[in-house]
């Protein structure tokens, strides 16, 4: 079972919910938590992993072999991202524009291009509290592209019926969120009952509809806002799987790095029930 936790608006509580869900399920299932917010990952604060494997996340970028290159410029023509330029008899490579697609390499008539790894971040694996397998990616500061790291992060493990995989998505509604959601069975959308939450939730709903992924809602900080959300939820027929009322004391504890289920252990059972509801919706087998 693969569940993504996403939101649209930042700061609604994705990581709070994702990590708490992981902790709640840890006794009943083998849980793997993937921190896919590779630009600003926070899962480690709540799950406290010990990492035993760290490797660079790389994009394969072209390296022109000058002895073979005839400066025909075909690679420049083929590149859709302008990551190559021909200057006199030299081909320049612009690594930060490169998507690592390999097209230039395959298309070089002289076989003058080899691909070399360009590190853009790290991939880490470890064990966290309660035997939860913890995986995350981190984008190196100043590197622009998060999506390749998310793709590689997810590939670190094979999907398996033995595991419950929880993918903690980045905020927003662009391609890194789509990459996180690729192939998951269910999207748990965490929102807050405010106009900002509502607006950004609409973006997320657009994504899960396009991708044909069943979704359900968690309304976090319930009580701080109005009920403009309720109308949208009715229209979209999205199940509300959980409401977490706003609680200033809870907010303080979360700020300090304590998990929701540490501060309010009654949520463990609540989240187990939420998981069971998800399973019913997905109509999946086992676990």
């Amino acid at each position, binding site marked *: 079972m693969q569940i993504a936790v996403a939101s*649209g*608006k*930042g*700061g*609604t509580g994705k*990581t709070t919910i994702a990590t708490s869900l992981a902790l709640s399920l840890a006794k009943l299932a083998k849980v793997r938590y993937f921190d896919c917010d590779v*630009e*600003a990952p*926070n899962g480690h*604060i709540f799950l406290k992993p010990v990492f035993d494997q760290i490797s660079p996340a790389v994009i394969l970028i072209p390296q022109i072999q000058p002895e073979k290159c005839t400066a025909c410029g075909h690679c420049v023509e*083929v590149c*859709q*991202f302008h990551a190559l330029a021909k200057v006199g008899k030299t081909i320049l490579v612009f690594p930060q524009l490169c*998507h*690592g*697609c*390999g*097209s230039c390499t*395959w*298309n070089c008539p002289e076989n003058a291009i080899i691909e070399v790894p360009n590190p853009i971040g790290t991939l880490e694996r470890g064990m966290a509290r309660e035997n939860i397998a913890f995986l995350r990616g981190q*984008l190196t*500061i*100043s*590197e*622009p*592209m*998060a*999506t390749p790291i998310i793709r590689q992060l997810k590939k670190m493990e094979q999907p398996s019926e033995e595991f419950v995989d929880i993918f903690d998505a*980045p*905020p*927003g*509604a*662009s*391609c*890194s*969120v*789509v990459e996180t959601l*690729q192939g998951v069975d269910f999207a748990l959308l965490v929102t807050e009952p*405010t*106009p*900002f939450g509502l*607006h*950004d939730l609409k*973006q*997320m*709903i*657009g*994504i899960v509809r*396009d*991708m044909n992924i069943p979704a359900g809602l968690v309304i976090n900080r319930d009580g*701080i*806002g*109005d009920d403009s959300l309720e109308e949208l939820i009715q229209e979209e027929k999205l199940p509300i799987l959980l409401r977490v009322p706003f609680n*200033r004391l809870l*907010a*303080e504890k*979360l*700020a*300090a*790095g304590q998990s929701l289920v540490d501060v309010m252990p009654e949520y463990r059972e609540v989240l187990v029930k939420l998981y069971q509801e998800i399973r019913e919706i997905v109509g999946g087998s086992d676990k």
Partner: protein
Amino acid sequence: MKTQVPKAKQLIILSGKGGTGKTSISAAFAHLSATDQRPVQTVIVDADVDAANLGLVLKPELGPANDFWGSSLAVINPDLCINCLACSPVCRYDAIFPDPQIADVQWIDPIACDGCAACVYACPVNAISMVKQQEGNWFHSKTAFGPLFHAELFPGKENSGKLVTLIRQQARLFAEDTRANLIIIDGPPGIGCPVISACAGTDFGLIITEPSLAGLHDMKRVLGTLRHFHIPSVICINKADIYPEGARAIREFAKAENIELLGEIPYDENLPRSMINGLPITVSFPDSPAALAVRDLWQKVLRSLDVEEDLA
């Protein structure tokens, strides 16, 4: 010789972590720029293009929608495809499948397609072409406090960085034409491409953080990004009293790193309330603790930026 026109200063507001209050503060700054004792002619940019919320508080009179054309995607013509499968091995994005509806041809998943065109070149019968995609819209709108440049990226699309660059350019051109003194850019969360596009070439960075472990962690990353691009920056702690130890940690960090802590805004229920009312806090609750702190922050930002005030 024509006299030199001073360029508008550009302020970028970032956070790293989402939800720290960038948009609420940007909205208040927009209001103050127009109504404060010494007003400053300002152009506002909402650079959080896939979750654009500033318009919800500034209530713009929407300008016409301008198409945003992003990258191209590969499309297979089923009439030409001979199912030779030369294309799928070159696709690194797992985007090519047997067509679910037409037998014996391949199909490209538009969501997975990266637009690299490797398949186009691999196809021996020219059955694949690149089709440009509209990925969103951008707008030049009017608000009560000045012009707003904003955009809506269609859900799930790429190229948010390119769209951010586009609206920033439009804002800069408009600022030049109207002799505005300041451009305020409400930035997106994170540190990747859209953030880089939002902060490139700006004059001053204001990091809005919150006193949580997560906030501190992400603030350090976005600060690293601003420093990489040599943008002088300062910090402001929002919801400062929600976790006093967290605030202390930020103060110590700021001291150790020689970064100015320009202000602290207490947790104030009036902030979410004003957001729900669809107004900047300085409009709806001008005497609230948060509004007063934001007002103070604004004055300090102006001083740091050394912005020319409107002489009108």
